[in-house]
């Protein structure tokens, strides 16, 4: 049996790119707010649906660029709304971690069924950003996938630059490091919480719109990437954005390799087993600090 290494790598990197976009958003919210957003997957789904409604002929037909822009913008608004309704009212509670798991779970349940009401059960597919296939380095790959592979590092780089060099970005990092001190030096903590949430939701919406060109859009399409993003975030280590990104690529490649050899179902079982082992033996993740 010949092993198709390039195919494994390409599909792994495509998956990794989407996981990276999902997981960085999740990690950003975790670092800043200290909560896990179980509604993160539904942002992805809604991003895909909205991009479809705006761009598809059966919807408004405003073109793909409009679809992407409006999807991301709506999700930023959705992130703000989610923060305001499901997180902010509970922030002074001692058991906030558990409460927010429950509220975001309920919120995601709400939105998933709203999606079912609006878009129905029929499968939808988005146009691809670029049609056709290309053959860089002798590997045949669809142009759309290539766009995903190339644009993800750029987007994450932009996020990194924002967090590293802008005033607002430093303020977000300051909150992540020490919330009380950040408050003391006059940082508007609630506003930056909202901003982190909005950024994270926008990234998820973009990931959804990109995934909508490869997979069918269904009301629960975000749940699997969300679970993978959990794995990535834990693998890379909570509290480390760099670790999250490396984690995404490692997990994406493990997944594609494993899918190639043992099939999709066992792969998922393997992923969760890895996840549990990491949580047992190194709960701070491979790159996390104690």
């Amino acid at each position, binding site marked *: 049996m010949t092993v198709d290494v390039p195919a494994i790598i390409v599909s792994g990197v495509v998956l990794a790119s989407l996981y990276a976009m999902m997981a960085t958003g999740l990690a950003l919210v975790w670092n800043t707010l200290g909560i896990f957003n179980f509604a993160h997957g539904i942002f992805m789904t809604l991003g895909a649906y909205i991009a479809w409604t705006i761009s598809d002929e059966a919807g408004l037909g405003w073109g793909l660029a409009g679809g992407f822009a409006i999807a991301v913008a709506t999700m930023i608004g959705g992130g703000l709304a989610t923060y305001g309704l499901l997180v902010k009212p509970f922030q002074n509670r001692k*058991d906030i971690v*558990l409460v927010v798991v*429950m509220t975001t779970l309920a*919120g995601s349940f709400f939105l998933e069924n709203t999606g079912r*009401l609006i878009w129905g059960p029929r499968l939808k597919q988005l146009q691809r950003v670029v049609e056709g296939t290309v053959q860089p380095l002798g590997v045949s790959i669809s142009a759309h996938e290539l766009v995903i592979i190339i644009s993800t590092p750029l987007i994450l780089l932009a996020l990194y630059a924002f967090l590293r060099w802008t005033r607002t970005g430093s303020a977000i990092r300051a909150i992540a490091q020490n919330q009380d001190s950040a408050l003391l030096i006059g940082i508007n903590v609630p506003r930056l919480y909202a901003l982190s949430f909005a950024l994270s939701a926008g990234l998820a919406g973009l990931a959804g719109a990109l995934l909508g060109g490869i997979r069918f859009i269904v009301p629960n399409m975000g749940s699997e990437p969300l679970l993978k993003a959990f794995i990535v975030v834990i693998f890379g280590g909570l509290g480390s954005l760099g670790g999250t990104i490396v984690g995404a690529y490692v997990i994406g490649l493990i997944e594609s390799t494993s899918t190639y050899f043992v099939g999709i179902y066992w792969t998922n079982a393997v992923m969760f087993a890895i*996840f*549990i082992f990491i949580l047992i033996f190194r709960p701070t993740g491979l790159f996390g600090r104690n």
Partner: protein
Amino acid sequence: MKTLVRPPVIARALVLIALLAVPLVVEDQYIRHTLVVAMLYAIVAANWDVTLGFAGIFNFGHLAFFALGAYSAGMLTKKFGFPTWTGIPFAALVATIASLIVCLPVLRLKGIYVVLVTYAFSQLCYQVILNQTEYTGGTFGLVLVPPLEVFGYSFRSAGNIPYYYLALALLVVSTVYLHFVIRSNLGRSIIALRDNEAYAISRGVALARQRFLTFGASAIFTGAAGGLYAQYLRTASPDMFGFAFVTFTLAMLLLGGIGTMWGPIIGAFVFTFISEAMIDLKEWRWLIIGTLIVVVLRFFPAGLLSLVEQIGERLGRRLQPAAPVPAPERPGSG
């Protein structure tokens, strides 16, 4: 801190008598069916409350014990041809073993990590079950599970009335059992661990051992309920691992009040009937349930039941202005 919301003995006795009488009085199969489902949910929710409410462990894998119970009972009797009465005890056994396995990583972890590891465990079970199509029916679920039969007497006879009484018996036994668990040393120590972990440990409570026992204790009747569920509905479906089931049960717990003995049981009954009444609303039903969870968490963290209690206390005080009993504030637990 008051942790046991207890309806008066008379109320409990009356409800039990009413439940015993339902099959004799009500001919309607649908109401009977809804009650059976409600009783099974009540068992699951009340047992989940042991880890989530009383012990304050963020256990999101509890529904997996229920699902594993359903699958193990179904597979044992359908695929391996064991007599059907072995299904429920086997389900309880499998669920308990599973709970002890998932507890191992939980012993060392805290907070969100516990949510993740318990949820990952439930997803792992789900994926393995999808994989083993030959034994579990894969994505279609395990269908045509043999109905319960004891000494040639089928529990499906007389319009499922035997199932009704079995579910009621299981609920009563489970409730009595939980009553003793919560009042035992184990129960008191896990509440102590929840409320002040450092202090409880310093007073000699063994955190790891108590957590281990808590998980095992909460899984026995959950698994048994799963087994009965499979034999009653004659199916076990992979949906039982999904978010919808978790959200549904969570709503019952929150509605009734987390960390209370009777809250989840009352919550399960109220919620099952509310949800059945809303069945014509289709997807809107889920939107209402989602909203309800958030509203209860936001405004009634001790559960809606506590609201009834507070009103009762206020009325009581108004009637007896001489008794200066301040209403004890019950903080939301978790």
